[in-house]
């Protein structure tokens, strides 16, 4: 069953008299519980596509369905509610709130978005902090931990509300090679364990190979879809 359906989706930005076509006639169908990557050079439309799927932006044309809900006509409040219950976000710059500890950052969506009771909240936060290996760092502030640790905390925050989908825009761009692989591995592990779909964008060719499905974008158009087969994965694991 499709988790995400995009039909003839376009996004045109108007800057004064000039129109910039960020995305053109995108048709896309992403299944549940998959690990998908959008690749392409800068300006190819990866972030725009993620923003549209994440209900952060609205398409100029076309239709977007996420979890079988038509999302392109949401108002601000409906979009926020939908994001809060269905989508987790991981950002390139980690975007942890500096005034909150790691624990509080992970807890934030459960308090401010979902209003989960305290006991359940605590159990869930500790579970995800444990899953990303950040239990020891839970009382530290973002300024007191490394980039890799920040992104792991961000992964826990994205997953704590049990979303159907996690969107990660260049999640490894600000990390060193080792940390980047650790974060991708963590995302992959979470995807398998929690049956959550992950979509991440990257232009790192080494990272992209970790995905099950790779969509390539160029100049706002989807130019290629590559499915990584089990034999590919086995070969990669042997290597």
């Amino acid at each position, binding site marked *: 069953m499709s988790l995400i359906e995009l039909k003839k989706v376009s996004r045109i930005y108007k800057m004064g008299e000039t129109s910039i076509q960020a995305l053109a006639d995108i048709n896309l169908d992403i299944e549940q519980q998959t690990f998908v990557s959008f690749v392409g050079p800068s300006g190819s439309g990866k972030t725009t596509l993620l923003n549209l799927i994440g209900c952060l932006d609205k398409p100029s044309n076309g239709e977007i369905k996420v979890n079988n809900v038509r999302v392109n006509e949401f108002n601000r409040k409906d979009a*926020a509610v939908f994001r809060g219950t269905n989508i987790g976000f991981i950002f390139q710059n980690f975007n942890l709130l500096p005034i909150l500890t790691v624990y509080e950052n992970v807890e934030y969506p459960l308090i401010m978005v979902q209003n989960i009771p305290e006991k359940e909240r605590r159990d869930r936060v500790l579970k995800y902090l444990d899953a990303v290996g950040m239990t020891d760092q839970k009382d530290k502030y973002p300024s007191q931990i490394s980039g890799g640790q920040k992104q792991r905390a961000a992964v826990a925050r994205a997953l704590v509300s049990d979303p159907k989908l996690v969107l990660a825009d260049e999640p490894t761009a600000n990390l060193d090679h080792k940390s980047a692989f650790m974060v991708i591995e963590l995302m992959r592990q979470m995807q398998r364990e929690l049956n959550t779909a992950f979509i991440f964008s990257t232009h790192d060719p080494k990272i992209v190979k970790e995905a099950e499905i790779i969509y390539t974008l160029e100049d706002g158009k989807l130019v290629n879809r590559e499915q990584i087969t089990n034999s590919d994965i086995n070969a990669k694991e042997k290597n």
Partner: protein
Amino acid sequence: MKNIFKISLRNLLRYKRRTLLTSLLIILGVVMVVVFSGISKSFKEMMIGTITDSMMGHLQIHKKGYVSSIDNLPLHLNLKDEEINNLKSLLDENSDAIEAYTFRIKFGAMLSNYEQTTNIRLTAVNPEMENRASPALVARINDFSGEANFFVKQGELIIPENLAKGLKLKIGQEVVLVATNQDGSVNGMSFTIAGIMSGLTGPSGRDGYMHIDDAKDLLRIYGNEINEIAIRLEDSDNLKNVNKMLSQNLKSLNSAIDRPGYELHTWAQLSPFSTIATIVDLLIYIVKIVLISIVLISILNVMMMSVFERVSEIGTISAIGTLPSKILWLFVTEGFLLGLISAIVGSIISVISLYLINIAELHFSFGRMQDILLKTSISISELIIVSIIVIVISIFSSFQPAYKASKMEPVDALRHV
């Protein structure tokens, strides 16, 4: 709500120096308003107290038309026996609100020391009644050491200080008073100077006091007649209510008679000093407006900066699913907390400041009254009003930046560097 408060408080503490400076500015404003209000209200109350306690009373009743011709001190608008009894009954019925009242005859006369003659304005009183209604009056008599209830006896005269100086009169000296009576005839009587009195505002007054029975003899009034009733209230703060109640009662008394009725005035309506009291109130309002401006500008500035600096964070919490209304409340709560904390600290410092002023025992002069102790005070209600002003303006001024934050498109906010 608890979490909104927690996050807002942490955001305030995040920029400690800025929060501290803004808070200090508001605290300074609160202290300025409360201390100014405490001092000026004390001054005003002292001034009003001096006027009402030593001269005017809180309310005065006259025959209708008397006040409009008060400069001439007319005798044809005297209250007669029946009217006095009616008014006395009315005042006695309201003895729970009225502490005391006094009957007066005010008239003009010529004062002569056998060498020189000058005009004088006299208030003829029953000294016992007058002392109850104007308990601070005797304090204006220089070197008075007698029994306050008998501060002026029959055959005695208390004259104002400047007339005593002008005519070189001394206590014990004999003078003659010549007055025109109701029928136009003139009468003269000799009196002994029993006291010299300071005016409220300095040596310029021409008001003297004498016994009411002497005035009746001098003016050839054969019966019970007065032209003024001065009323002292149990609680001066109750003036408005008592004034309203007595006005209604007098209205019904007026309708029962076919002669010109009675008129009731508050001290403020009769005394030019009420203008000073109004100016004091106006100054307090102006200082409050300055406080509002300080709070408005400083909170607006700090919240606008706060929103501008946290655009990316607003984008993040919005993307995570925080509702626009919660984003709005996060910022409004920051303004509210800044106002609340500043108002509490400002109020505490203000109360301490007023206490220190009282301990320092500062003295000042008002007119002829020297060495008056500045006794400051501030009511809890005034502190609450100032605090509420600060908090409401804090919320109001943080609303615009908060609204702006809540309306940010997450996709634009996330792009912000």
